[in-house]
């Protein structure tokens, strides 16, 4: 694997945001925000450029310190990593622009909000580092970077609710990381390496591998708020400031999911079984339905959107049972792997765009009204048509109506489900869609309904609405290049394990 083309992009993707975050620390209020925004734009631009580079040159690597694995750490930017980095870049830029106007028009940028920019940049560095990492321990460090900065951002609003939610979030996340790290310790003990690829080759099936799989999966499920470990997410995401909620729900929860995906496909091949996939898929299905149901019951917009995250993240887990082949299935014959894989990628993208747009829209409403009770959305179409439209468009993508990214995701997922013969997942997908339609149209219904009283609201900068709308549109625009994207996702050179083998043969369950 070390003979792949090397490049400085991976190192820069982590280094640049850290540098800009450090620089922005030296400035007070306005200068801090300027430096922060410039940093965000640069980091985002770099993310997009490096994505383009990967589409041209294939997988890029960076051997840190010149020390090859197993001793050293290797950064690897393959198609999957590039995809995640690309999404983070696009969504991140728009959220940063939103944050710029959000904070500057709140006239409060002198206080703690200055911390937003450095923390967000550090978080961004952590995310990039996580997507690039090819080393189990380094993944731990990056995910801790993400946890600390994410919780810090979540409590920035300083409200008591946010503090409670933040502490709960932090404790859950630390527990999750420690569980993950215990698994890493055992894996290191059994294989003598931390490199994902090498470990995948060296790992022998047995009690240790199975236990590591379980404990790591559990730990990561806590961090990604999978059912039944979702308890911390709704309060934490809903009590944060608008741009922060968007970052947390669109990007941060994807981090733990990404690790899980990497490990399941690249390391744990030997200890996975058909049943394990079914179990994960089941928790995903429950999350889809339960999260959407809870969302329907909410009275606050941000809580609704947060529960919707739990539901939408469940779809990602539902792709896992399709990736693990039953013992008798030959590698070549599994034609559902590609749809399941691309469906998962599309769900990640569509959810990142749609959910960040929804949270930013919710932020606009809070900004204008001072609260986010769903009842107050009445007549939104008349007084904030652009925001109503953003909510509508993003909602449509969440439901999975054509021609949105969410539709692509569900289409691919359902296709994979039927091709694999695991038809029992289909009702969950559809029921989730229906319930999602339920809460999305609950919002839209109110948006069209007449106001009970005259609404007094603060004027909102136009540009905030534009950012939210652009993100919502993004969840549709990703469909246009889908042919190229799908080809890209399956086509880059990889290391024999992992994505390529997924597209070709899937992970073979033992048992």
């Amino acid at each position, binding site marked *: 694997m070390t003979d792949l083309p*090397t490049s*400085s992009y991976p*190192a820069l993707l982590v*280094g640049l945001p*850290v*540098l800009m975050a*450090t620089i922005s*620390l*030296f400035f007070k209020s306005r200068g801090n925000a300027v430096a922060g925004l410039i940093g965000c734009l640069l980091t985002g631009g770099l993310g997009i450029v490096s994505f383009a580079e990967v589409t041209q040159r294939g997988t890029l690597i960076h*051997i*840190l*310190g*010149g*020390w090859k694995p*197993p*001793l050293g*750490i290797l950064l690897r930017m393959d198609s999957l990593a590039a995809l995640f980095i690309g999404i983070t870049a696009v969504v991140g830029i728009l959220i940063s622009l939103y944050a710029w106007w959000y904070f500057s028009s709140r006239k409060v940028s002198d*206080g*703690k909000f200055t*911390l937003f920019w*450095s*923390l967000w940049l*550090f978080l961004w560095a952590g995310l990039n580092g996580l997507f690039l990492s090819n080393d189990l*321990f*380094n993944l731990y*460090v*990056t995910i801790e*970077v993400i946890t*600390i*900065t994410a919780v810090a*951002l979540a*409590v*920035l609003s300083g409200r*008591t*609710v946010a*503090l*409670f*939610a*933040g502490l709960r979030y932090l404790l859950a996340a630390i527990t999750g990381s420690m569980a993950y790290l*215990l698994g890493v310790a*055992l894996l*290191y*003990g*059994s*294989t*003598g390496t931390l490199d994902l690829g090498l470990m995948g080759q*060296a790992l*022998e099936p*047995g009690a*240790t591998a*199975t*236990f590591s799989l*379980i*404990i790591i999966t559990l730990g990561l499920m806590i961090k990604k708020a999978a059912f039944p470990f979702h308890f911390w997410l*709704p*309060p934490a995401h*809903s009590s944060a400031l608008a741009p922060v909620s968007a970052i947390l729900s669109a990007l941060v929860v994807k981090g733990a999911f990404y690790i899980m995906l990497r490990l399941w496909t690249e390391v744990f091949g030997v200890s996975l079984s058909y049943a394990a996939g079914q179990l994960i898929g089941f928790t995903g299905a429950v999350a889809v339905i339960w999260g959407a149901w809870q969302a329907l019951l909410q*009275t*606050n917009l941000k*809580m609704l959107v947060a529960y919707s995250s739990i539901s939408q993240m469940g779809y990602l887990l539902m792709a896992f049972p399709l990736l693990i082949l039953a013992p008798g299935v030959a590698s070549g014959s599994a034609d559902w792997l590609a749809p399941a894989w691309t469906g998962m990628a599309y769900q990640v993208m569509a959810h990142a765009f749609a959910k960040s747009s929804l949270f930013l829209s919710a932020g606009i409403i809070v900004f204008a009204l001072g609260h986010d009770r769903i009842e107050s959305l009445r007549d939104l179409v008349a007084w904030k048509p652009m925001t109503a439209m953003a909510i509508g468009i993003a909602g449509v993508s969440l439901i999975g109506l054509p021609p949105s990214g969410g539709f692509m995701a569900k289409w691919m997922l359902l296709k994979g489900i039927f091709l694999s013969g695991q038809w029992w997942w289909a009702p969950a997908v559809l029921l989730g869609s229906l319930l999602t339609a339920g809460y999305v149209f609950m919002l839209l219904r109110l948006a069209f309904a007449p106001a009970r009283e005259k609404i007094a609201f603060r004027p909102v900068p136009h540009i905030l609405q534009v950012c939210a709308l652009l993100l919502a549109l993004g969840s549709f625009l990703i469909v246009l290049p889908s042919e190229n994207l799908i080809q890209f996702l399956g086509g880059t050179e990889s290391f024999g394990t992992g994505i390529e083998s997924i597209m070709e043969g899937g992970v073979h369950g033992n048992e």
Partner: protein
Amino acid sequence: MSVVIDILMAILLIYLALRCMLAPELSKTIFTFFAFGLTLALAWIRLEAVDVAIAEAAIASGFMGVLLLDSLRDFSYALSKNPKNLELPENFTIKESNKSLLLPRLALGIGFVIFLLISMEATWKTPEGGGLTAVSEELLPQSGVEHPVTAVLLNFRAYDTWLEIGVILMGLLAIFAAGGVKNYRKPSMTAVDPLLRQVILFFIPVLFLFGAFLLYFGKTGPGGAFQAAVLWGSIGILFHLGGWPIFAMIPRKLRQFLLTMGLGSFLILGFLLMAAGGAMFEYPPAYAGILILIAETLAAISIAVALTAIYVYLTK
């Protein structure tokens, strides 16, 4: 014989951990935690991990212990008499726990035991992966330092270490975000026991020298940036305990510089090395030793300042 010691130590560790969790009073929990930390440090030594032992004793037990002790004092205040600002989220329904808790507890207990058994089986059966000892031994001469742990930390896996220095800075920012920054008041020269101040004044140069020693000899033996940083950081903490608010006395710009110096210099070094045509953190072998020492020193100063700052802002 040594097996007996190890078994006794293991039992002691488990006992202390349990005691720590089950102690009815918070103060007992914290003191037991101290004991636990020190025992763990001894266990590290039994496992030939002197570096870890120093780090554990200094950071996990020492630094954390100081923070916990101060928090204990804070939590013992009668503040709870007048709860204010209790703004509960709407879904935080406080459940009445009238119904029997026996069943859930039983289930939890059984789950706990099962988890314990499975995890013990898994550990027991861990295959011998062989570790990376041989590789590190082979590559150690090229690393520019002689102590393998330092080589791993600052050369082989310098990237992790760099991120970790970042984590400390982020932790400090996070503590600001949690609400510390506005409430920071300069400690007044309150009545501190003169004897204490004398003791502190005596300890400060000792700590400084010992830290410098650890830093420098981290090259060849146990010790290194983190251990030195904690010792230097404790100088800052001691100053504050003695009523000298040195952290507040440093000008803001300098403080910022000191705090970011470790992370920044490491990063710039990495970028420069990249610009020179290598990978990030790829030291030219001839200069590896000196570059590592410089980076390490700057990092140690930064961490020391950051730890002091964490203490200052956290304890207020």
